[in-house]
């Protein structure tokens, strides 16, 4: 079979899917008696209209880049890592321990330390399901989902019984030292006259996320490990023939995946909350799946998809704040985006492919007719 041009595959299909999702969202908003156009304007203004709005959108996007990359890396080895949520929770624990119990002289060193801690804890949490898959054939989807619940229970226990300072009223750790506070966008971009990103949580971690995209791209397409990982993902039988060790690939891909999911914690735990609270991940682990699907498991695609979901997340929050559109509506819109870009991919792809073929065959048929 011939294929569509690459640009159509990469850009046209997601864009058409998004437009369809938008149309359906508009219908739903109309159905509950609200004005979809006003809702769009509010979302755009709330998510992109000011540096404050951008500060939130990029903050969320940072989370989604990490969890999206996590799913994408595992997916190249045909491992479906649903456990980003739990791995990110454990990453938070790693960050908290590193920040609370090691006296860092400067935030930059603390950032490196926290990244290592987050990655190690996230990877460790992915290691057990990976091992069970590699050695016992336990399905990675099932085990990683179960590990999300275990992670949650573990965190509740630790926060309530171990890490909570005496006298505190909520299950959370104490605040991290002021000295290791990560520079926020406000600190980084404001000049003497104008304050930018006032009150927004976006911080330097965004650039760590962008760097992670580049590193993942190099890993997947430029290294021998990435080559073996993709080979294993495409065809396990061929990988065996070539002498690629399945256990190694399953373990390594899941460890990298878990580490990336865990690293999300430097954004939300260290960069924003500056302490570890319960439910710090807020579902970003699951959104990572949608981000990876929409981004076609390519780091650049993941980056764009994360921006989109950051926009939806922040725009949605604004919508709930300023209109009588309920917060649940946002979930509906996000669900529609996931549905159209992920699950219904073929619905858009097939008609577009047909269209391309018929366009292509017409000029080809002409000389034949002239004979």
């Amino acid at each position, binding site marked *: 079979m011939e294929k569509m041009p690459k640009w159509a595959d990469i850009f046209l299909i997601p864009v058409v899917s998004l437009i369809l999702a938008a149309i359906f969202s508009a219908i739903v908003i109309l159905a509950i008696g609200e004005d979809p156009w006003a809702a769009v304007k509010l979302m755009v203004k709330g998510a992109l209209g000011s540096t404050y709005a951008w500060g939130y959108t990029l903050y969320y996007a940072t989370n989604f880049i990490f969890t999206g990359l996590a799913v994408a890396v595992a997916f190249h080895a045909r491992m479906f890592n649903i456990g980003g949520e739990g791995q990110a929770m454990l990453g938070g624990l790693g960050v908290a321990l590193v920040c609370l119990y090691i006296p860092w002289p400067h935030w930059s060193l603390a950032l490196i330390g926290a990244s290592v801690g987050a990655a190690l804890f996230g990877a460790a949490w992915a290691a057990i399901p990976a091992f069970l898959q590699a050695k016992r054939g336990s399905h990675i989807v099932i085990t990683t989902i179960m590990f999300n619940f275990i992670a949650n229970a573990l965190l509740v226990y630790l926060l309530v019984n171990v890490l909570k300072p005496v006298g505190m009223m909520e299950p959370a750790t104490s605040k991290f030292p002021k000295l290791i506070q990560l520079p926020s966008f406000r600190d980084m971009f404001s000049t003497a006259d104008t304050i930018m990103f006032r009150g927004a949580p976006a911080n330097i971690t965004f650039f760590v996320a962008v760097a992670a995209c580049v590193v993942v791209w190099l890993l997947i397409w430029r290294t021998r490990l990435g080559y073996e990982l993709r080979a294993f993902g495409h065809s396990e039988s061929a990988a065996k023939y070539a*002498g690629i060790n399945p256990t190694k690939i399953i373990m390594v891909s899941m460890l990298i995946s878990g580490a990336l999911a865990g690293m999300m914690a430097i954004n939300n735990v260290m960069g924003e909350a500056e302490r570890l609270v319960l439910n710090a991940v807020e579902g970003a682990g699951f959104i990572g799946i949608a981000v990876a699907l929409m981004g076609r498991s390519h780091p650049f695609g993941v980056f764009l998809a994360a921006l989109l979901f950051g926009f939806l997340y922040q725009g949605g929050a604004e919508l709930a704040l300023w209109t009588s559109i309920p917060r649940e509506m946002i979930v509906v819109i996000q669900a529609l985006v996931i549905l159209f870009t992920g699950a219904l991919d073929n619905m858009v792809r097939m008609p577009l492919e047909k269209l391309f073929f018929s366009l292509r065959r017409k000029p080809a048929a002409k000389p034949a007719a002239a004979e």
Partner: protein
Amino acid sequence: MTTPAIELKGISKAFGPVQANKDISIRVMPGTIHGIIGENGAGKSTLMSILYGFYKADAGEIWINGKKTEIPDSQHAIAAGIGMVFQHFKLVENFTVLENVVLGAEDGAMLRPSLAKARTQLKQLAEEYELNVDPDAVIEEIGVGMQQRVEILKALYRQADILILDEPTGVLTPAEADQLFRILGRLREEGKTIILITHKLREIMEITDTVSVMRRGEMTATVKTAETSPPELAELMVGRKVLLQVDKVPAKPGEMVLEVKNLSVTDSGGVQRVKNVSFNIRAGEILGIAGVAGNGQSELLEVLGGYEFGTGEVKINGEPIDLTGRHSNGQTRRERGIAHVPEDRQREGLIMDYMAWENIAFGYHHDPKYQKNRLFMDNAAIRADTADKMERFDVRPPNPMLQAKSFSGGNQQKIVVAREIERNPDLLLVGQPTRGVDIGAIEFIHKQIVALRDQGKAILLVSVELDEIMSLADRIAVMFDGKIMGERLPEKTNVKELGLLMAGVAGEAA
């Protein structure tokens, strides 16, 4: 003049931009065996699928017994008296022969009367056409040849007058193939019309009355079998003159390269696939392993290739290799000078979604000349190497950036062969080198294998095509049920003797 049993007029069919059938017209006379021959992808199967109602033709007409007939689905095909025997049988493994024959043609809600009726009819059919099958045998317990008879019976039970057989001898031993041809001859005598689809010239010459040749979706010729010859048919199939016989000088065996002693392989299901096999290969000779598919040849290749485990003793150049898989895999085998063209290029030899250049590095991706530094692979170097290999092995189109799946079967195989032969191995394992490969590429691949032998390399060739084994191998071993039944020299044996060994009938002690 009699009316043709089948007449196709101007059939065309396209899949996307690919024109599978182009304006095909053909007449099949009643009571004859009509062969359709062509390479893989020539459009034979598409044409038959149109006749059997699986595909709808874009243009053209089907006439059956002088009447224009629409065949929108297989129900209509059966009603029009057409029966089809597929290459891969469509039988329920744990049903009896009788149940399989009745399946889909029951008379009512209750099974018993249908079965009783079928039993008497089967008996009649068996007498009429010498198609003896035990109606109460369970499918999974009878041999492949028998299963094929059940397929034929199924068609006849549905009152088929026209039988289409798609590559029917692919899974049969030569003896079973002979039996099949006897049955087909009998059916012809009784006035049935038979269409035989094959890529084997020998079968066409042996049994058909008329033969049509297809090439790239077009019908290039229809001739009387008696008035043609294999070289002429081959030329019609390929579009140029083809060397059917491999030119080779007698082997000059040298040092012992591969020594296999008491090798056994048990698969993950606990079934012993290879049983106490011993053989040797010297430098500069080809050992051919003949046998019907599924008699342990695959496992033999896999264990030598390092990704199946076994017991026994295997030495390469006098040094033992690890058979347990604890200290070895495909990687370590390559380091020991063993290259492997696997039986199934789509499942093992290639990653179909990888581009040609990625596939050329496949298995050799640790090669220092493919690395830029300790971290990164040198993709540019691999691409250059690929372009070079593609040119020397005449892979078309010679574009390293194309995905493996966009090449034809023959060109895919050339990529694998290029990758493995160019490594200059001491021992080359080759499984089914020409399965699904067009005649032109077969000729090329055979030449490469013989050339490697003449450079003094040892070659283990596994093939289910006896012709291939006979023309390439310097010694022939026959495998049956995991055992080597005997070794023969190609010039001192014949298809009949090998066929008996393949069926498990031991000749004089080897």
